[in-house]
């Protein structure tokens, strides 16, 4: 009685809805060049993800010896020989820029290479499919079993299979979350703590979150993530150009498609037929369940599996392979016009991307190699900004924060330039007799000093004069400076 028909549907009933109810995809197993590339890349990606936290790196006593570590409590990020402080988040910005430029470059060369081979969503979904196939069988079997289960034919065997599949999925998901937290603490210790239930609650919470997201995204959402949730297909569609190589059905070679028998008959009659035998293998293997022969489409993650599927068909019928392959429309048009194919990996767009990547990379490397291992920040006291002393002299107070990013303790001197005869006094420091008191900063530490600057009584000063704090490493001569002002009451 409450049957609902929206006015918009009445008017535009012919248009496709914005969101189609999901059709379960049952991709068939396939083997071939691209499948084996995908297996290898999967092994590499998962291997890096799961094993990297266990790689050790000797940084000396007291420093963590994990090669890649995000040390949140101490606010440090370690990446092999690099150690970043929170002040240096711009390196991460740089990395993000590099990542997007690489993505653009990949896109200009070969379309959604990222989506098809490297994206975590693809890698984990692929792994989940492998598990599913192992337990429930290949495409036909899975479809048959699902149909039977939908009809209420739930057998013990079916229950066992489903339970086994979900258990293994959950285990993989749990390991995914488990590996994630290992990046935030000493991995071997944390593994031991996790096994003995001694680990911090936060670790369990994060493992829980990642277990859940992995299980849901790779087990249930699958291609839906690529089609409806991920922004990259939309962005890449806007970034791509006619020269980019995409997984393409070469309709110039495939059409007119028809069955092998019919094709022979038609050929005998002198009609032109294509190589596609309409076996629908390319659709059966597609993890997003689309027909690549309909041309380039948003749902295609360009995993290349349909290439493998079609190649094996072509082999069987004795035709050259790559009826589906990495190609572009320009070549299709050229072949149809009888011209030779051309490929242009080097063109202004790709040159620009490579140049940008090299440029940003070089800037980052330069910044990394020449970055200051000694740093100083100065904060002027606000209340009061200046004090008049009994002999008429003026004094200003500052909070000076010294950063020693070196792995050794260092002795530095605190000097101030800008006003003649300025006296520097560091509270709690006994080398205050000199005009450049020296201070010791522990390795990999910050030191906060309270520094008083006193001008001579009879000197004439502006309301505000610039001063420069000059911190000098006694050992290496390295200098860090900071500007501030000296004000009068």
């Amino acid at each position, binding site marked *: *009685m*409450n*049957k*609902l*028909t*929206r*006015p918009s549907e*009445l008017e535009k009933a012919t248009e496709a809805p914005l969101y189609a109810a999901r059709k379960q995809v049952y991709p068939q197993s396939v083997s071939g060049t691209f499948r084996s590339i995908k297996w290898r890349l999967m092994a590499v990606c998962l291997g890096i993800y799961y094993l990297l936290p266990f790689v050790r790196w000797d940084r000396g006593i007291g420093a963590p010896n994990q090669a890649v570590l995000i040390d949140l409590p101490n606010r440090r990020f370690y990446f092999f020989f690099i150690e970043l402080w929170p002040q240096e988040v711009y390196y991460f910005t740089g990395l993000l820029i590099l990542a997007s430029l690489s993505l653009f470059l990949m896109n200009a060369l070969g379309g959604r290479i990222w989506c098809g081979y490297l994206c975590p969503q693809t890698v984990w979904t692929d792994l989940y499919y492998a598990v599913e196939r192992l337990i429930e069988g290949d495409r036909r079997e899975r479809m048959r079993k699902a149909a039977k289960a939908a009809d209420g034919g739930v057998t013990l065997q079916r229950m066992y299979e489903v339970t086994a599949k979900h258990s293994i999925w959950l285990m993989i998901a749990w390991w995914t979350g488990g590996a994630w937290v290992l990046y935030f603490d000493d991995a071997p210790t944390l593994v031991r703590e996790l096994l003995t239930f001694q680990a911090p609650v936060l670790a369990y919470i994060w493992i829980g979150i990642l277990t859940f997201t992995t299980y849901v995204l790779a087990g249930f959402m699958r291609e839906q993530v690529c089609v409806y949730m991920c922004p990259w297909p939309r962005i890449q569609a806007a970034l791509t150009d006619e020269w980019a190589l995409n997984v393409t059905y070469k309709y110039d070679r495939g059409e007119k498609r028809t069955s092998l028998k019919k094709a022979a008959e038609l050929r005998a009659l002198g009609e032109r037929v294509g190589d596609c035998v309409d076996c629908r293998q390319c659709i059966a293997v597609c993890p997003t369940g689309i027909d690549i022969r309909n041309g380039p489409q948003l749902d295609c993650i360009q995993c290349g599996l349909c290439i493998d599927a079609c190649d094996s068909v072509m082999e069987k019928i004795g035709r050259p392979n790559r009826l589906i392959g990495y190609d572009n429309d320009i070549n299709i048009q050229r072949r149809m016009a009888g011209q030779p194919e051309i490929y242009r990996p080097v063109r202004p767009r790709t040159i620009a991307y490579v140049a940008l990547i090299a440029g940003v990379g070089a800037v980052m490397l330069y910044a990394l190699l020449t970055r200051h291992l000694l740093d100083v920040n100065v904060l002027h*006291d*606000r*209340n*009061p900004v200046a*004090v*008049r*002393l*009994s*002999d*008429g002299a003026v*004094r200003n*107070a500052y909070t000076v924060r010294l950063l020693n990013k070196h792995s050794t303790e260092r002795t530095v001197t605190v000097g101030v330039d800008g006003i003649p005869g300025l006296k520097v*006094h560091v*509270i*709690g420091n*006994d080398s205050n007799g000199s005009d450049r008191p020296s201070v010791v900063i522990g390795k990999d530490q910050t*030191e*906060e000093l*309270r520094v*008083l600057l006193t001008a001579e009584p009879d000197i004439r000063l502006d309301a505000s004069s610039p001063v420069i704090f000059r911190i000098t490493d006694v050992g290496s001569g390295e200098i860090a400076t900071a500007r501030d002002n000296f004000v009068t009451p």
Partner: protein
Amino acid sequence: MSDHTEIDAVSGTSTTGHEWDGIKELNTPLPRWWLLTFYATIIWAVGYWVVYPAWPMISGYTSGVLGYSSRASVAVDLANLEKLRGAKMAVLATIPVGDIEKDPALLALARARGKAAFGDNCAPCHGTGAAGAKGFPNLNDDDWLWGGKIEQIMQTIEFGARSGHAKAHEGNMLAFGKDGVLKPDEIVTVANYVRSLSGLPTRQGYDKAKGEKIFADNCAACHGADGKGNQELGAPNLTDKIWLYGSDEATVIETITNGRGGVMPSWASRLDAPTIKALAVYVHSLGGGK
């Protein structure tokens, strides 16, 4: 609900059968996910009532099965904090105040604790940054009525000045005018003399010799023959550039006429010993310490 199943001609949706002035209500139910979310929040709320303190009663409130109370959880946090700081605070309690500044970590701790205590207790008079005000000394400068060594500062904080505590600093500036010791014109003369001690200009035609004599007879006992003051008595140095109550002639005359006797309370009974120590370190490190 009526069993009215009229279908609206324009939208094709059934109506609820309600009509006001010819306007009919369409029956467009909420999406299921929306309703489920709504029900879930209701169940959540009921669970919340059971688990956490929720309902006010005539005397008190339902305490919830978890027995949670925000006051108790704050108390736990505070206890943990004390435990965390325990070792350092124990050192702070026993170490002589003069040695604290030699250990950077201890100095930082004492300064932090002192700063917080200063904000709570001292800032109302001395200002949040200890810049002081008229009658309330600036603790950043180097002029100290009762001494600026760290031990002296601590003593002043502990017992105060003219606070009534047995160990408090004592010493009053007498009311020379009000008590009839000096005549008004003598006060003007000695006021000008005092101003001249710190290099301030004097009134034209004032009798320097007479001022000097009045000073020697009445003021030198506390402020010293040279006017440099006496910290034992809290008598300020009159030759420097810092004037607690102001240096203009009228103010100086008022001071001599009515006397001064600012009160600093004793904190010994209100703050614990480590806090007083931390306060002394903080004030000393403001820069005025000697």
